């Protein structure tokens, strides 16, 4: 259903669930059963390569965005797990890609958002230029908000030059690499992504003890029950040691994200408890136990978050249940 038709016929009480490509459909919890699904427009709205900014409909897939940017030697390092993911979906879920170590999280790539409120108003937050502090940072507020504050319609992103060379290497210790783009560790040797001028990449690799080049990037663990742990980077090693043996994991060193996957829902629940024991948390991305609320922990500053939710969506129409507080707010 087109967004603009969505709630008129359904009346003001209709529950809305913005939908992208469903690549991260269960992040944060399942959508409400009676929700009307609404989609954002798709396609590039404005792209000026010399400004290194691009404006797209929130329903545009990452694959499309990446193809358009590549034609001008640019990229936007959102790096979703599935390239069919939409820009709106990536932002709403707030899941950063593995190159975050060098290029920053998803929230640092967003310049302006335009969204529709629960009561049908079109609102803009942020601004189209690469630098802007005019007014409150609503774009960052929307990253990770899981469609509970507004329905993203249009997004302006910051782009950057594609690196001249990008190669993955494996080595016992990759700490000496100057600002690598990613460092992944699944218990054995580390995989490191080095980007930059060809000669610099080669020289950095030469200094890595006993390195081998990988033909393709390491694949994160997969399984019916999947999520990502967020802990302080300094606590990654002790956290993975405490994970149950039937949980596959891959840690982003220097970032603190640990991707976990398992065949058993119960093991994912235990991984979540391990995350809590290390002052972190686990966002469920797929599977999990049936009553799982997606976060598994009380939200810090819940009262403040509830007030924000109420301010943006007074009727509680947008994706109720997606955040722990939202479900209670509606119940």
């Amino acid at each position: 259903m087109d967004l603009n038709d969505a709630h008129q016929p359904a009346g003001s009480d209709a529950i809305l669930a913005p939908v992208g490509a469903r690549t991260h459909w269960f992040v944060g919890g399942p959508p409400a059963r009676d929700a009307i699904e609404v989609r954002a427009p798709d396609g590039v709205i404005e792209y000026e390569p010399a400004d290194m900014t691009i404006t797209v409909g929130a329903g545009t897939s990452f694959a499309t965005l990446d193809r358009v940017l590549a034609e001008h030697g640019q990229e936007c390092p959102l790096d979703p797990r599935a390239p069919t993911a939409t820009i709106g979906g990536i932002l709403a879920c707030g899941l950063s890609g593995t190159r975050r170590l060098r290029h920053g999280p998803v929230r640092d790539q967003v310049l302006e958002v335009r969204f529709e409120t629960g009561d049908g108003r079109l609102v803009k937050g942020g601004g189209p230029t690469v630098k802007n502090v005019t007014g409150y940072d609503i774009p960052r507020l929307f990253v990770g908000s899981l469609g509970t504050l507004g329905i993203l319609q249009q997004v302006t992103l910051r782009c950057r030059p594609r690196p001249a060379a990008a190669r993955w290497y494996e080595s016992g210790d990759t700490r000496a690499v100057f600002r690598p783009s990613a460092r992944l560790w699944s218990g054995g040797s580390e995989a490191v992504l080095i980007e930059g001028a060809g000669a610099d990449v080669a020289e950095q690799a030469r200094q890595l003890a006993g390195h081998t080049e990988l033909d393709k990037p390491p694949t994160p663990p997969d399984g019916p029950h999947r999520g990502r742990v967020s802990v302080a980077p300094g606590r990654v090693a002790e956290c993975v040691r405490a994970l149950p043996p039937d949980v596959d994991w891959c840690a982003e060193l220097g970032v603190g994200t640990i991707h976990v996957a398992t065949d058993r829902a119960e093991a994912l629940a235990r991984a979540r408890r391990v995350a809590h024991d290390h002052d972190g948390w686990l966002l469920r991305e797929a599977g999990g136990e049936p009553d799982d609320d997606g976060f598994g922990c009380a939200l810090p500053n819940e009262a403040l978050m509830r007030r924000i939710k109420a301010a943006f969506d007074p009727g509680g129409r947008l994706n109720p249940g997606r955040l722990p507080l939202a479900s209670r707010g509606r119940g």
Partner: protein
Amino acid sequence: MGRERASLEPLELALYARDAGVATGRAAAVCFPSSGREVAAAVRVARRHERPFVARGSGTGLAGGATPLDDPVVIVTTRMNRVLEIDAEARVAWVEPGVLNLDLSRAVAHLGLHYAPDPSSQQACTIGGNVGTNAGGPHCLAEGVTSAHVLAVDVVLADGTETRLGGLEPDAPGYDLRGCFVGSEGTMGIATRIAVRLTPDPPCVATMLCAFDSVESAAATVSGVIAAGVLPAALEMMDARITQAVEDFVGAGYPRDAQAVLLVEVDGLPAGVAANVESISEIARSNGATSVRVAADDNERALLWKGRKSAFGAIARVAPDYYLHDAVVPRTRLVEVLRRVYAIAGAHNLIVMNVFHAGDGNLHPLLVFDRREAGVWDRVYAAGIEILEACLDAGGVLTGEHGVGLEKRDLMPRMFSAADLDAQACLRDAFDPDGVANPQKVLPRGSRCGELQRVPEGTWI
């Protein structure tokens, strides 16, 4: 908090009646807490006496963000100036809000690290103030502004409660309250401890000075560099007047006959740096650069930067007063916007100097004047408004790094619709339902949460 750290003395209150902006307010009381607990106590005392409160660092803000309005308690954070913790391995430092920006970089220099955002006022401005305004600086072109470098903030909210927004873990559950708070200009509470990301020093740095015989050629070079897919660490532009003033002031080795100079820095690993220096030199020459010089050593580099960072001090040699704007335009529109900026100043019979972060399109037109001249302030003000309008017309924004504060508050409806401002007011109300944290800043009157009335056209004047 002891009596020695709070004051009602008229002389002291007068000192805190304004920041580096143009407006003057009035403080009811001023206090100098030394801990988060004391900040919370100060907020509670203010509330008990039904006073708003205003957080203040060094008072270097140019947009009037720390101007005390509605007879508030001014809470000065300069005594909270300790670097609390440095984790070189994780590249994180916990600091108190009163730590000076440059002092933080100095404190971690021996570890081969620095704090990337580097406002021109970095010798004087505080990290807490930087968080308030989401401050920028020349090196934010490649590294991003303050928000990209703040991981967590311990804050005292408007109701006096203490809490942490964000955290050292890469993502916090729920909404990004840290992201909301950074840049909220003291309207969502007061930062009492800040966790910042530290950046490794680059192994290789090249600083270049390119001279041009027209501002247009320099601006075209900026657009050309970005269009060619080169992202320098910094890309700063200075026009003829400011170049000469700086040269007279510090002798940075800038060419006196240039109509414009670009100060360009590239850093990273040697091959990438060499390739970027070559691309930039080529683009500058193809746009008619009269000279392209690469600093031979660290001394020359430091001197070139000293020139740029002394620009505002050098202006005193031209005229006693200046008024500085801070708009951003798309980088492809720099040439035409600069042309309009000069035309507007000329039409108002004013001198304008341009020294700015060209790489990210962040203009800093300086209107210089002598306030003793009758009626000059009206001309300066009118020209400033026209310049901002020209930037907005070119698809730009009102402020890139200084903040809205008081100065640009009433211009907000030029950039945002009533619905946009309403959403921002709702967000502010969620943090501070009673409107006691830095009242009357950022949002114009009428953008009240829940009210949908449109602000009548023209009320901002």
